[in-house]
């Protein structure tokens, strides 16, 4: 009698305990047994749940989503509201999609380089005084395009007449 009572009591307690857990953390938490970090000492070994995953309302501290007196997780920098955002898409997928986009930009660059550059309709501008070599510091490699003395057809025609 007493043993069946105690079993029922235990089941009720466990159920109640479950209810409390489910209320505190709306997102179901799968518990994985792990060895407690010895550096924690007698500090509570809290579950690895980001505050960003907790329900938005009903907290004493609305912004940080914690109640008064709640112990802080050891890894609070990662798991608090100010920690890195929980990714809206899996990171590997994000990396893949971003890589695709970058490849598209690079591919478009190659397309521009080899297929889309328009033909220059005019001769590049030339500068007098040997391509302004002295005005630009005196070095040959820095000078602008030098004047070339090309005999064009029109002047040849004019000369003939």
């Amino acid at each position, binding site marked *: 009698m007493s043993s069946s009572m105690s079993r029922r009591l235990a089941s009720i307690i466990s159920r109640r305990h479950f209810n409390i857990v489910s209320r505190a953390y709306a997102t179901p938490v799968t518990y994985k047994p792990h060895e407690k970090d010895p550096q924690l000492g007698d500090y509570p070994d809290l579950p690895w749940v980001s505050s960003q995953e907790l329900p938005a309302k009903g907290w004493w501290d609305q912004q940080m989503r914690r109640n008064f007196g709640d112990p802080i997780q050891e890894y609070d*920098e990662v798991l608090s509201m100010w920690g*890195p*955002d929980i*990714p809206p*898409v899996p990171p590997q997928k994000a990396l893949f999609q*971003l890589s695709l986009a970058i490849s598209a930009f690079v591919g478009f660059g190659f397309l521009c380089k080899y297929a889309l550059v328009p*033909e220059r309709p005019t001769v590049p501008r030339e500068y007098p005084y040997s391509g302004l070599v002295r005005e630009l510091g005196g*070095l040959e490699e820095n000078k602008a395009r030098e004047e070339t003395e090309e005999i064009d057809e029109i002047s040849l025609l004019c000369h003939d007449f």
Partner: protein
Amino acid sequence: MDMGLSIGFFALFALFGSIDYATVFSLAPFMNETAITIIGLLLLTGAMAKSAQIPLHSWLPGSMEVKRFSVNKNLPTPVSALIHAATLVTAGLYLLVRSSPVLEYSSTALLVITLVGASTAFFAATCGLVQNDLKRIIAFSTISQLGYMVMAVGLSQYNVALMHVVNHAFFKALLFLGAGAVIHSFSDQQDVRKMGGLIQFLPFTYTAMLVGSLSLLATPWLTGFYSKDLIIELAYAQYSFSGTYAFILGSLTAGLTAFYSFRLISLVFLTVPNGTKSAYLHSHEASTAVIIPLFILALFSIFFGYVFSDLFVGVGSDFFGNAIFTHPRNISIIEAEFSLPLIIKLLPAFLSLIGASLAVFIYHSKNGSQFIIGLTDTALGKKVYTFLNGKYLFDVVYNNYLIAGGLNIGYLISKLLDRGVIELIGPYGLSNTLTNTGVNFSKLDTGVITTYSLYITIGLLSLIFLVFTPILLDNSIIIIKEEMRLVIIYLAALVLVSSNSFLNKKEN
């Protein structure tokens, strides 16, 4: 990335022996081109971070929006108007423009600058298409326009870049202040999906924001037109790879800019009201203190370009004197003005018109709305939307592959070094050792006289050993003072060995 800029300064100092502008600029033509390229790229990293260029852009929209989980408000809008339109973000541009005499001697650096600028302009415009936060849309538009400016710098058109900085300051400040007026009057609401129909309540703010948007999308003869359109034309007029890349992306960006600007106008001011009734009942036009700056900025957004374009970017204008240097082989203003086909000249304006009309059509007609809603019904559409709305998912990748790595290293250092090794050989270890030694020594007090005589014997033997070891080792004369090391080692060993808990273990 300020580190990159600092390294750039160090490199400048190492190469030129000075970081004085006059010295650096006068010596730049005589320096190794590779060195100049490296310096140019290092300066670019500083400018990229400051002017929010890919891949260092994510701070700018982040500083605008209401943080997803935060109940605190974000940056005040006038601060956004000042910092993100006129002053802070253009500092990077200023650095590049001011460094023109150095950059001009490195075609590689200029090429990289153009590619970064053009890619940023296009990237930001595509992201801006699907944002829902009023200020974040304007923030992406800012990044996009900064991309245009950087692009202009890469194309060696420093004066045009500078004019776009000035023009952009006018219309973007107008847009930000207008947005601030809307947000303030509409119960601090920033989500454009929860607005609509505000033209009836805020006619002046609507007018101001319309002027800002029209100027932003380079409507002919408004301020933005004189710089933005010219940048696109100058890109084409280069007849080069970088110019073509910049021209195509710049033109597409112009169309996208028009679309998201008119999307914003439509969702906020036109279409049907989507907000709460109380928000509409309380909405009111801003006070005179807000209206006056909006009015002045609107005037500048309309007329500044028309009045000052010849001064800034006119053919042969010597307004900037020696402040800006463009190498003669990079001058392309003549080609841009006179050699371009008409269709190329009109293309950006044409694309802008299409973009704006499309936005108005989509957000006003039933078919358009159904089309835009239907886009996210397909799996691909949903993915594209998430990708663009998530800003190309840069933040996810950064958070998981860079920030997480940094945090892990931090925890590793904390666990293994701070609370590990340093603690063990430092405070905890020392106190523990001394305590253990004390405990172990106290155990020697057995009360048995023969044990004490053993201690005396061991002590005597140790002393003799200490005194005579030097002689045994190298036959020198005993000088205790010089051989203090042995005594120290002996005492330390005594403490450390006795501290060990092996005595306790034995007991256990």
